């Protein structure tokens, strides 16, 4: 744990970044950077929770003036561990933990008991070295193993238990030592949300949670697919679809801290309506939940509408990295069908191709096999302001998205959008924020995932029916101007912070 920046100014809002800002570029990091840069009058502090020191290189962002504090720590780093020493461990402590565990196991999806919500529990009652090195901890782990996981590889079990629990103490240590602040704001649940919850409970300060994805759900998918958690049982030893014990431990763990975080948060913010519904299904109190969508800087994009030639070019643009999650192959197949009907149509794939070279190769082979060499082009990374006027239709074929800013940017640049039905796409394209939003009307089409036929139908419709295209363009422009500007996004958070500080509801 080290403090990299401390300008000795009061921290108004403390942001907790788990594996994102300022070391890794990406959606959440950009979001944090825009928030901090945008709300100049507020002083921000950032706590970065990384996995291991060697997983990160240099700081990727230029810090604004109002970022007054930066603390970084690594959850799985050896240097955060106390020196190994032989210790007995307190009998009473472990008897108590056993009680907790029994109760924890008996619940279907348990909620964290009150003792565990307090910081002192981790810093004074059960110390990190007790957990790591005491004989009682060892006895405890082996007893649990014998009771619940007898057929699992022991070393995997042992390290799962360690790796799940270890960050808790690293986090408690941060919670003890972090500088004073007014509001804590976490852009995810998980470990970051856990730290925010401990801080809230310990200092009795407001806690705001913004979820970009649904952490608990994403972790569940990660864990089920994780290669390193090898199920060493033979195939006939497990039932079809059964999740083994170790994966179950992880899932239950994230579920119960997720619930704890929802309960601790004073505000639970999601980016779009569907996400809010999922949060409520996962145990969030509906009265705390609100939606604050991301916004885009429309001033720079609006002039692009005029730059587009008339009649509009028959070009469908897919903005995104060439990786499997974006399902580029479905786009290529849809283009084959489109070109059959609209021979002059083209499909441009705009985005870096170097992230997954193997997948890129497969995509190019598919283009060749479908004889689309002069119809589907890989353009690599492009300046958005130059490329958007050259296309007339924006598309996303992803199998998973949160709230894709590119759709909003497309709207602002006068592009109707055709996307798969993932994340907030339906809300963005059909309108779903409120009654007013729905009234504006459609700004494109939403189709099922992995369905080239349906995609192509929408492309053809929009490439051939200019009136419809113009209507969608108009709707998109109106929607982004009314609900999704960067100014609105920032003002919403200004309000949220004010509300939190004054201790009353404004929204």
């Amino acid at each position: 744990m080290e403090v990299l920046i401390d300008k000795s100014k009061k921290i108004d809002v403390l942001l907790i970044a788990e594996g994102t800002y300022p070391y890794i570029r990406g959606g959440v990091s950009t979001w944090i950077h825009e928030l901090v840069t945008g709300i100049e009058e507020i002083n921000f502090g950032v706590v970065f929770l990384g996995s291991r020191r060697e997983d990160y290189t240099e700081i990727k962002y230029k810090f604004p003036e109002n970022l007054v504090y930066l603390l970084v720590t690594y959850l799985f780093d050896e240097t955060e561990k106390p020196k190994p020493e032989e210790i007995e461990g307190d009998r009473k402590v472990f008897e108590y933990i056993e009680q907790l565990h029994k109760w924890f196991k008996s619940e279907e999806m348990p909620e964290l008991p009150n003792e565990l919500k307090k910081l002192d529990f981790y810093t004074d009652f059960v110390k990190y070295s007790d957990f790591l090195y005491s004989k009682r901890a060892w006895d405890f782990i082996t007893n649990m193993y014998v009771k619940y996981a007898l057929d699992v590889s022991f070393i995997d079990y042992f390290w799962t238990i360690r790796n799940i629990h270890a960050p808790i103490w690293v986090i408690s240590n941060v919670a003890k030592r972090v500088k004073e602040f007014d509001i804590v704001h976490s852009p995810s649940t998980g470990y970051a949300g856990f730290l925010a919850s401990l801080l809230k409970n310990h200092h009795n300060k407001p806690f705001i949670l913004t979820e970009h994805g649904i952490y608990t759900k994403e972790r569940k998918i990660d864990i089920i697919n994780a290669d390193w958690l090898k199920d060493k049982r033979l195939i006939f030893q497990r039932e079809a679809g059964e999740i083994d014990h170790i994966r179950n431990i992880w899932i239950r763990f994230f579920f119960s801290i997720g619930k704890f975080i929802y309960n601790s948060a004073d505000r639970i913010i999601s980016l779009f309506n569907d996400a809010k519904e999922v949060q409520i299904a996962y145990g969030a109190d509906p009265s705390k939940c609100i939606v604050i969508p991301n916004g885009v800087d429309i001033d720079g994009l609006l002039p692009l509408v005029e730059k587009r030639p008339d009649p509009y070019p028959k070009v469908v643009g897919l903005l995104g990295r060439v990786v499997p999650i974006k399902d580029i192959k479905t786009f290529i197949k849809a283009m084959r069908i489109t070109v059959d009907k609209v021979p002059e149509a083209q499909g441009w794939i705009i985005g870096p191709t170097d992230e997954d070279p193997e997948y890129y190769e497969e995509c190019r082979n598919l283009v060749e096999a479908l004889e689309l060499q002069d119809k589907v082009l890989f353009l690599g990374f492009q300046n958005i302001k130059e490329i958007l006027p050259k296309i007339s239709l924006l598309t996303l074929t992803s199998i998973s998205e949160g709230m894709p800013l590119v759709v909003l940017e497309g709207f602002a640049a006068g592009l109707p959008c055709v996307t798969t039905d993932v994340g907030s796409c339906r809300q963005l394209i059909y309108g779903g924020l409120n009654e007013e939003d729905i009234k504006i009307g459609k700004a494109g089409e939403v189709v099922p995932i992995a369905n080239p036929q349906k995609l192509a139908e929408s492309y053809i419709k929009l490439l051939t029916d200019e009136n419809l295209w113009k209507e969608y363009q108009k709707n998109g422009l109106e929607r982004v101007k009314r609900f999704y500007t960067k100014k609105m996004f920032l003002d919403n958070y200004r309000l949220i912070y004010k509300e939190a500080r004054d201790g009353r509801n404004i929204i």
Partner: protein
Amino acid sequence: MAGISFELRKVLREKTISAIFKAFGYSFALSSGPYVITILSLIISYFLSYDIIKQKLVLTQFQVSITYLVAFSLIYTGFSQLFFTRYVADRFFEKDYFKILPNFIGILVLNMGPAFFVSLLFGLIFISKYTGILYTLFFSLTFTILVGIWIINIILTGLKSYKYILFSFFIAYLIFIVASYFLASFGLNGLMFSFFLGQSVLFLLLLLYFIYLNYSEKIVEFDFLNRNRIFVSLIFTGFFYNLALWTDKFVFWFNESTSTPVIGPIIRYSIVYDIPIFLAYLAISPGMAAFFLKLEAEFASYYERYYDAVRKGLILQKIYEYGDEMIEAARAAILDTIRIQGIFNIVIIIFDKFIFDIFKIPLIYLPLFHIMLLGTYLQLILLSLFALFFYFDRRKESLILSITFFSLNLFFSVVTVILGPYFYGYGFVLSIFLTVIISILMLRRFLYEIHYHTFMLR
């Protein structure tokens, strides 16, 4: 490299008495060979040159000189032995092979350089006026060479190059015996030179073999002094361990009533103590062979199997099972060593007068020899226990035990010297006995919690 265990297991697989004897003989040669060769060569050269020199004092001067050189060079290299072995082992584990040779040269330079100057200074101050400058030069050169030999020897032993070591000792001491026969007419200087010649050959044979085994682009490096790669406790364990082994002898050498000066007032020997104890050391070689055999042929494979089970992710029940079997193998190794040496000691006691006659040793030493026999017997057990502690990388216990052994040995030896001749030897026995008891308790405690240590504290 790990071929020895494999060879021994192969021999033992035949399950006949002759196979067991073969394996035992092989173990004997590999474990105690160099040591037995050294002592036997000194005895042989004693008888060969006695006819030529016919001066008992010169021969005693020579033998005592060699004893001093061996004792002090062992203690001197004690600082480096364990920690550098560990350094080499770690580089092997990391597959960072190119680091080994230059750092090896580094530690040789670091040891042999000061060794030469310190021993020369010592010689010039305390010895040269009694025996002349040539003797002093041979004295410090031999000391320097011995320092080098111990370091290569322990590394090559660690690499399990037992056969080559044995071969080198054989050649070197053969050269020494032949040279001493021809040079004995030059008196003490002739003998010293022959010994120096033999040791130089030994040093070169071992060094060239080590260079042949390793490769590096660099000549010399001092990476082993890197703060992150050094295990400080091993430096002191090595030192105290070697010091403890000689403490009782020092007490007897430097006490007026139990010793006689040989060269000046500083180089002395103890007529009452030295002969019985060196015979008693010779007597434990069968036990050492037995332990070596058990350790290499049996324990090592159970040890590997246990840690493999841990690493490869077996279920806990199997880990416990293999752990128990490994502990059983450790216990068997110690107990069998005790049994075999016990039987051998009984045989020796039955034939003690006969043995003394062969070596022309006065029977007056017999009672002390019996006590010493018990002492070295216990020391054999202690050595075996230490070997297990090192195997399990129990650095803390090793350090505590080596310091305990040294302190007890010093204390009780001084006490016995004060109490008088009837008590000679009992101090040594008692100190080892207590250290053995403590070691066993510590080993038991550790093995009882071995899984906890393996998982929680590594």
